């Protein structure tokens, strides 16, 4: 096991990692920007060093300064958390070059999964289902029709150069296709100067289901079940839960096996997440792989009892996974709400400021992961999440009741938070029924 680990992150995830290190008896090193001088991770670490000004580019993304600290203080490993340098293969490369273990997968795995089309091709080759569609660009409307017929309507036509919703058209049937293709092609040509068009199956009610995997250096890869992260706002997850109300044991097994296959395809080591879209008919399609710990990893910890961050550190230090697939037992239901310093009445505008009072909920089945405290100034430079509230209970309905109780108890003064938004969301009939898709917040007023 490592003697000294540097945590190259801030906020709740830095605190999360420091906690795991402390429990493993590892000496901890924090790094921080000038804006984070009073941050909790700085206070909890055994050592802490300022690595740059507030702007992340010059501090938390400053590879030279971080590596300077790591080598000077004799850190044997670096945990990158999520965001910042977590999926930066250059950083992993530099770590390897100076002989500091990067707590995460290999450079190769990061690179293969970092590029979406390479990732998709890799998965396809490994036999993991990807969203069916054209193989690359379409030559003409006729080819589009052939493909659409093969994969079935509705389909979505996308401009290869598109973005921000532009150059995208959903086509419900054959009759619409020709016109749509022509329009999309000329639209794309005008908007992006590139008329390349491709086509994919359109999922009308997709759920975001992701599988947690973890592998060690001995080639073992196991999965820890799924998380349902369908409740999103502009691709930003707001609530995550495990297990998914949409999966039965058969589908869970199938998706779990697909995820393990995906991870093995890139000789995956460490914790990672395979994100799938799940269609109403039970078909699922690979979206992407996150080659790091996820914000929502605590819900999986809740139902499995397995400490994912500790496992990351264990396998990075060369130890084998502490459990086999058979020993992974799911129990109960866990839900996480991300509490952001945002004003949900003003389009979720971030509200940095000083937290003047802070009291987290307690009691049975409650977990709070946060770097906030009374007197803490939420800086405007980083993301607006100030706490993750995770509940566990034997059943989903009990977990919802517990979350509601805990949200009511969560007392934060000084900054606006999304606590009330979550309370409203928990009361939504569709959420209670577990009947949600990634378009939930587009379709319903909360």
């Amino acid at each position, binding site marked *: 096991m490592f003697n000294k680990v540097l945590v190259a992150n801030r906020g709740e995830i830095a605190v999360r990692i420091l906690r795991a290190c402390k429990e493993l008896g590892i000496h901890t090193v924090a790094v921080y920007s000038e804006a984070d*001088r009073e941050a909790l991770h700085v206070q909890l670490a055994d050592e802490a060093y300022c690595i740059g000004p507030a702007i992340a580019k010059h501090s938390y993304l400053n590879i030279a300064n971080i590596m300077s600290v790591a080598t000077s203080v004799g850190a044997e490993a670096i945990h990158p958390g999520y965001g910042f340098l977590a999926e930066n293969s250059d950083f992993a490369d530099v770590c390897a070059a100076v002989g500091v273990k990067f707590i995460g997968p290999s450079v190769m795995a990061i690179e293969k999964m970092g590029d979406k089309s390479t990732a998709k091709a890799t998965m396809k080759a490994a036999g993991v289902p990807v969203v069916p569609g054209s193989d690359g660009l379409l030559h003409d409307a006729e080819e589009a029709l052939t493909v659409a017929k093969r994969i079935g309507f509705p389909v979505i036509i996308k401009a290869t150069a598109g973005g921000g919703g532009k150059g995208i058209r959903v086509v419900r049937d054959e009759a619409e296709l020709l016109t749509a293709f022509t329009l999309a092609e000329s639209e794309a040509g005008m908007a992006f100067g590139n008329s390349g068009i491709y086509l994919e199956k359109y999922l009308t009610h997709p759920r975001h289901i992701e599988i947690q995997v973890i592998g060690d250096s001995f080639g073992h890869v196991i999965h820890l079940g799924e998380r349902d992260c369908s409740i999103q706002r502009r691709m930003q997850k707001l609530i995550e839960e495990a297990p998914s109300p949409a999966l039965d044991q058969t589908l869970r097994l199938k998706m779990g096996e697909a995820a393990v296959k995906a991870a093995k395809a890139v000789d995956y080591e460490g914790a990672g997440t395979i994100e799938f879209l799940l269609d109403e008919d039970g078909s699922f399609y690979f979206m992407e792989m996150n080659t790091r710990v996820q914000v929502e990893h605590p819900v999986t910890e809740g139902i499995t009892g397995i400490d994912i961050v500790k496992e990351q550190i264990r396998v990075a230090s060369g130890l084998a996974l502490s459990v086999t697939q058979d020993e992974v037992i799911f129990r109960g239901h866990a839900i996480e709400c991300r509490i952001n310093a945002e004003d949900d009445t003003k389009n979720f505008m971030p509200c940095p400021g000083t937290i003047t009072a802070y009291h987290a909920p307690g009691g049975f089945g409650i977990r709070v992961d946060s770097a906030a*405290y009374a007197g803490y100034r939420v800086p405007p430079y980083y993301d607006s999440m100030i706490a993750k509230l995770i509940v566990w209970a034997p059943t989903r309905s009990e977990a919802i009741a517990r979350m509601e109780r805990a949200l009511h108890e969560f007392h934060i003064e000084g900054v606006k938070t999304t606590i009330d938004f979550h309370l409203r969301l928990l009361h939504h009939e569709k959420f209670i029924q577990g009947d949600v898709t990634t378009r939930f917040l587009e379709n319903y007023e909360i």
Partner: protein
Amino acid sequence: MLTVSDIRDFIRLFDESTVHELSLETGEIKLSLKKAGATVVHESASTHAVFTPALHAEPPMESVTVKDVVEPQDLTNTTVIRSPMVGTFYRASSPQAKPYVEIGARVTPTSVVCIVEAMKLMNEIEADIAGEIIEILVENGQLVEYGQPLFRVNVK
């Protein structure tokens, strides 16, 4: 018009600022704020971290500020040269060479004052200011953080 919440914000802002007196008239609203006597307890009380700093060293910038206040000598014309990066501080280009600067040395903005080694790269640090070196604040071979004061300079 000023709303109640505006006024509240003013008080808070005033409180956190170093401003000593504030008076404001707008329409029929008159607001006047005053702080006690000389420089009383600045806002640090309310912004104290919940946790007492752990085992690691005091943040360097803070400690300098404290020094500025505590030291008896006249510091009105002094400033510090800070490290622009994290690395190992060296006073000379090699163990055999003599230090770039000693106390009493006169420096121009482009004078090299030390080396900060980061990732095996020797980075020459320039003074960025003209004046006289009056104090060397770190030890040779010491790890310096970003923004850590390295030299105190009398700028006159």
